[in-house]
């Protein structure tokens, strides 16, 4: 495998592994916990490094994941004292823990592989140089770690799909049925922590947030089904990873940052063009509603005067200004809309209702 192919593979697998727990974070409105956890796992790594003495020990992963859970617990403890609100609690706990980690690194671990720039930027470009040989295979470490994380995430979500779904959409029903909300909450947080540790090594802490939140948020605008949201998130995550890689290559820039940018661009596209929920279709719906309302007004007006002595006068096109305060342009557009819909007919500057138009007006008036 060439280095560039390996990097793309790692990027894709990392993005997918992050997007899976991210779906539940977005749905449970806990997106900012990923920000907190992805920062504080660094403290876990540093403390684990002091204990074990090696940066590449596999024990650092559980240590770091544990620190993620400690962050969640500390934040909740702070909320429970009722001294501060939830947002402030998050905003106090994780910068403090992250600062301790950064200071510890710069004082006691500066010579080692841990350096603070790598923490934020990630070192995806160098991932192929850090290799792991086992069972006669020779693979990049990041690829092995992230593949294992991805498999674990898939297995956990598949195994507890029903429970996660219920706890996410109807927490009180889940609790009534005997599913412990605390267990599910901490289980999910553990998944986020482990994923963040693995991904953080490859792509840096801030990008973990981008990969966890942005593809699921975009997927949330595209579907109403959890299973489809998971699949679409995976697709968007992979697309962000590949686009980001080639963007980085083209600009000779940091891969992690480019992947975040790509995921943001994809989100923007979805936000604008998503069928039904995108800004474009929202705007279009608003315009259509406007003309439909005008059409209804017009048919009711015509129905009122139909067959009366004043009909010839009231149903003239240029009379609409008197009666409805419609500007000539607006009136013309409204009449064209109604003509297209087949509710109104025009002949010689006088408007007539069609059978459909009469039906529409009657139906709207009896509402």
């Amino acid at each position, binding site marked *: 495998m060439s280095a560039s192919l390996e990097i793309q593979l790692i990027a894709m697998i990392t993005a997918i592994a992050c997007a899976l727990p991210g779906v539940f974070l977005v749905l449970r409105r806990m*997106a900012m916990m990923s920000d907190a956890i992805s920062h504080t796992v660094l403290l876990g790594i540093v403390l684990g490094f002091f204990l074990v003495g090696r940066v590449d020990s596999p024990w650092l992963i559980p240590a770091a994941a544990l620190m993620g859970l400690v962050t969640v617990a500390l934040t909740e403890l702070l909320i429970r004292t009722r001294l501060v609100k939830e*947002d*402030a609690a998050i905003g106090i706990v994780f910068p403090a823990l992250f*600062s301790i980690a950064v200071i510890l690194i710069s004082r006691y671990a500066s010579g080692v592989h841990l350096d603070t*720039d790598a923490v934020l930027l990630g070192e995806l470009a160098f991932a192929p140089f850090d290799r792991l040989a086992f069972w006669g295979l020779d693979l990049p470490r990041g690829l092995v770690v992230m593949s294992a994380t991805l498999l674990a995430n898939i297995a956990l979500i598949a195994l507890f799909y029903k429970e996660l779904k219920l706890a996410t959409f109807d927490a009180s029903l889940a609790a009534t049925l005997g599913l412990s909300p605390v267990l599910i909450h901490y289980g999910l947080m553990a998944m986020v922590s482990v994923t963040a540790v693995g991904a953080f090594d490859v792509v840096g802490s*801030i990008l973990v947030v981008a990969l966890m939140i942005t593809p699921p948020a975009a997927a949330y605008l595209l579907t109403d089904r959890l299973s489809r949201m998971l699949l679409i998130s995976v697709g968007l995550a992979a697309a962000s990873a590949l686009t980001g890689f080639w963007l980085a290559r083209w600009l000779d820039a940091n891969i992690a*940052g480019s992947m975040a940018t790509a995921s943001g661009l994809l989100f923007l596209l979805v936000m604008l063009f998503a069928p039904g929920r995108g800004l474009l279709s929202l705007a279009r719906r608003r315009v259509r509603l406007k003309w439909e309302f005008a059409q209804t007004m017009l048919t009711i007006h015509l129905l009122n005067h139909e067959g009366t002595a004043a009909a010839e006068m009231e149903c003239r096109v240029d009379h609409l200004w008197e009666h409805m305060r419609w500007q000539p342009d607006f009136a013309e557009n409204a009449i064209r809309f109604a003509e297209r819909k087949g509710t109104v007919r025009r002949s010689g500057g006088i408007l007539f209702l069609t059978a459909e138009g009469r039906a529409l007006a009657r139906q709207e008036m009896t509402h």
Partner: protein
Amino acid sequence: MDFFLQLFFDYTVRTVALGAAVLGLTSGALGTFAVLRRQSLLGDAMSHAALPGVVLAFMLTGSKSPLVLMLGAAAAGILGTLLMLAITRFTRIKEDSGLGIILSVFFGFGLMLLTFLQRSPAANQAGLNTFLFGQAATLLERDVVAMAGLGGLALLVTVLFWKEFKLLSFDRDFGQSLGFPMTLLDILLTTLLVIAIVIGLQAVGVVLMSAMIVAPAAAARQWTDRLGIMVVLSAFFGALAGISGALISSLERGLSTGPVVVLAISLLVLVAFLFAGNRGLAWQWLQRRRRRRRLQLETVLSNMLKLAEQHEDLRHPHHVAVLRAMDYGRGGVLRTLAVLAERGDVVRVGEDTWSLTEKGIREARASGPRSTGDGRAGG
């Protein structure tokens, strides 16, 4: 002593301390409103979103003048905030996800631009890196002047719109009904918050600047219930943490300022959470214990009265075991009796028997029915 002399005469140290004081003062004062309005994490998103603004401002102008970079940062911060509002307003995505998207995507975009600059040989981008974790030691006099100018402006506007901002923070709807342009005021206050963040970026860095918005205000909140005092206290805490953090970090090579400042302010938060009067955890604990003690005294006294009322003589002695039974075996009855004896409410009559005094009877009647047991239980 040498250290303090150096403090006053060393140009670098003085500049650094002044700069840190300005940043702490501004972010502390304006952070108060963010925390009260539950927008703590908006500060986090804004400060991350500022990074591409800094880099783009440098790319477009080629200048590293503080005002240019700060304006770029502010523009990006405001754009990020507007986008976040658009996402939560026009789609069904909630605030937390909106913040996460803006924070990470803008920061990622900033990193992309920064590394793009670093690898292009022509540009002299050295120094932009310090915007990640901050480096107070790199502050020059012109930086501090720019910071003080912007910060002073922001604080002046806050004072001018004091009443309106107070209304916005506590009862927006009431303000609206009085005819104040609440949306405009909201935009103004958010802009001021962006300014406060931008001022601190060079010294504290985009990653940890958000803590300077949240933490001083969270600490100040514990000490007071009045907005005016809270703003002043928060500004003071911010400045204190800023100065101490900046000085400590400039004494040592390779130590970024951001983390040290954040640790300093976190310490202040911890002290406030534990020891602040009225709200602090230690104070709460003491209150609870005092309440529990008083309740116990009153209960035992009242139980004794109830027993005594079964007899001709109200000073009829009672056995401890009976009082214990009436107290549902909660324990501490003997200790409570000792305290009551000290106050002159009861006297020890025999080995294990106690009786009420005149004073005790009066007090038991005054404190009302609070006995735990049914009077007929004893005898």
